[in-house]
């Protein structure tokens, strides 16, 4: 029924990955359709709060005009357990990342795509890939089918289309995490005062321990212009045995935590959002990033790096969209949208890029990070060690004594601890 429009490329999903791919293809004169289920681009987007700028400079020549909130100079890392707290506070010499709303940032990219000539069909849910003997010919949306020479799948982490078409396995909780976030309004001055920031300067703060009820994952606070993004990520693997409370209760505990609430005091909660994110990036990757008539970008391709201290998904998504646009351009100009051509022009450059290389290098660390002991016993070892060192009675323990006592109190073997730490360090 009702089709005929033939596009050079159809992009499914106007997130940072899809919108960037559409922008670069439209800019190169291709006839591009960008389909997004949300109302306008960005309205379904949720992330933590910080975007790394360096890769984006290659992708957007006017990045400074993007809806940037604050350039991050301050990094903070905290382990919380009851009234004990260990905080690492770092002020960088230069900033390489900024805080933003992904809703706004995505809209900014999508607008560039539209200005470059892409057709944005929002409010349209794509229901399936149009398959023709293993080749992707286009998309299916309700009763409509639309054909394209190449389909760029940028549907994000929740891969309904790729799963339905059998290109990837069914998502498993082990590979994923759930993030929830509250956006809290406070005025600019108050934010800068409370976090000790200079004007326009931003903070990224990762917290572990009690704040996620010791469930694998971490909490975060990012400072925006006049709001805070406050939330947490919990791994879904084994979540049902570990989760004792509802996820929103964890978010509220974070906001009202006696050691933290003074930062949020008096702020109005403007929004409460949730989204999944990738935990095991390499395991989540499809076998290939390109097939006959189709390429896969962004989260849908498993391109996300969460080291526990930093998380990168948006810049990876946009950069992969950019690589896809360049690859599709080459393939189409050769008149060949086969898997071989698309792999040659997109998959190979992607595998050679910093994204893929870093994901492979961090592979081991991410396994270490998934160990639940990493989130319960090890933070306590750190706190107990410091407690031994600082909370002195008569005796002053030697550092190795402090560590040994902390280890035994948490039933962690020294060999195990040393090995884990070594593994984390080695993989970096």
């Amino acid at each position, binding site marked *: 029924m009702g089709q005929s429009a033939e596009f050079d490329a159809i992009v499914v999903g106007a997130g940072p990955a899809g919108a960037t791919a559409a922008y670069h293809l439209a800019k190169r004169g291709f006839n591009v359709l960008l389909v997004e289920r949300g109302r306008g681009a960005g309205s379904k*987007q949720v992330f933590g709060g910080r975007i790394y700028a360096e890769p984006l400079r290659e992708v957007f020549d006017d990045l400074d005009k993007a809806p940037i909130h604050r350039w991050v100079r301050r990094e903070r890392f905290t382990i919380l357990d009851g009234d004990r707290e260990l905080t690492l506070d770092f002020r960088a010499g230069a900033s390489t990342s900024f805080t933003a709303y992904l809703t706004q940032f995505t809209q900014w990219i999508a607008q560039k795509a539209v200005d470059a000539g892409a057709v944005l069909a929002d409010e349209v*849910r794509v229901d399936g890939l149009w398959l023709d003997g293993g080749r992707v010919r286009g998309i299916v949306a309700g009763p409509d089918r639309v054909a394209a020479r190449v389909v760029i799948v940028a549907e994000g982490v929740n891969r*309904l289309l790729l799963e339905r078409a059998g290109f990837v396995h069914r998502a498993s909780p082990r590979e*994923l995490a759930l993030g929830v976030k509250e956006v809290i309004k406070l005025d600019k001055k108050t934010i800068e005062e409370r976090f000790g920031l200079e004007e326009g300067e931003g903070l990224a703060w990762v917290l572990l321990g009690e704040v996620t009820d010791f469930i694998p994952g971490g909490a975060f606070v990012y400072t925006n212009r006049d709001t805070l993004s406050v939330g947490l990520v919990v791994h879904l693997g084994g979540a*049902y045995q570990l989760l004792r*409370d509802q*996820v*929103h209760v964890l978010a509220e*505990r974070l906001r*009202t935590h006696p050691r933290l609430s003074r930062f949020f005091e008096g702020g109005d909660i403007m929004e409460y959002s949730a989204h999944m994110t990738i935990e095991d990036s390499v395991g989540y990757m499809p076998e290939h990033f390109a097939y006959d008539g189709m390429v896969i970008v962004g989260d849908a391709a498993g391109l996300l790096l969460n080291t526990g201290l930093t998380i990168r998904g948006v810049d990876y998504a946009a950069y992969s969209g950019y690589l896809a646009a360049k690859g599709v351009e080459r393939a189409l100009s050769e008149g060949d949208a086969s898997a071989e051509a698309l792999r040659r022009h997109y998959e190979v450059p992607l595998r050679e890029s910093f994204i893929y290389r870093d994901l492979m290098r961090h592979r081991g660390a991410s396994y270490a990070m998934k160990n639940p002991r990493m989130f319960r016993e090890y933070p306590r070892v750190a706190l107990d060690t410091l407690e031994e060192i600082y909370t002195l009675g008569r005796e002053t323990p030697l550092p190795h004594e402090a560590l040994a006592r902390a280890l035994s109190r948490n039933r962690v073997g020294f060999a195990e601890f040393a090995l884990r730490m070594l593994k984390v360090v080695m993989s970096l």
Partner: protein
Amino acid sequence: MSQAQEPPRRKLLRIDDLLQRNVYDVDQRPHIILHAEKCEECEYKPCLRACPAECYVEVGGRVIFSYEGCLECGTCRVVCPHDAVEWDYPVSGRGVYYRFS
């Protein structure tokens, strides 16, 4: 041992109060359908705690689902061990509309 007085813990907001902060344009047709008969055999019922919008509640031993406050995260589809969740996104741009996330 002397200790600084901890400020009292503030009240946690209920889920309704959190969801009320959001903008929704709810469709009359649900985008997720729960086949609740499958939940009876379910031991953990992970949806009850993992759904960030508390769309799944247990009443008298049965799981009851409502889609209106759904944040469209997809978690329930992934954590359900019995394939009881028939999951899709809303159509026509409906559902939640994020502005500051």
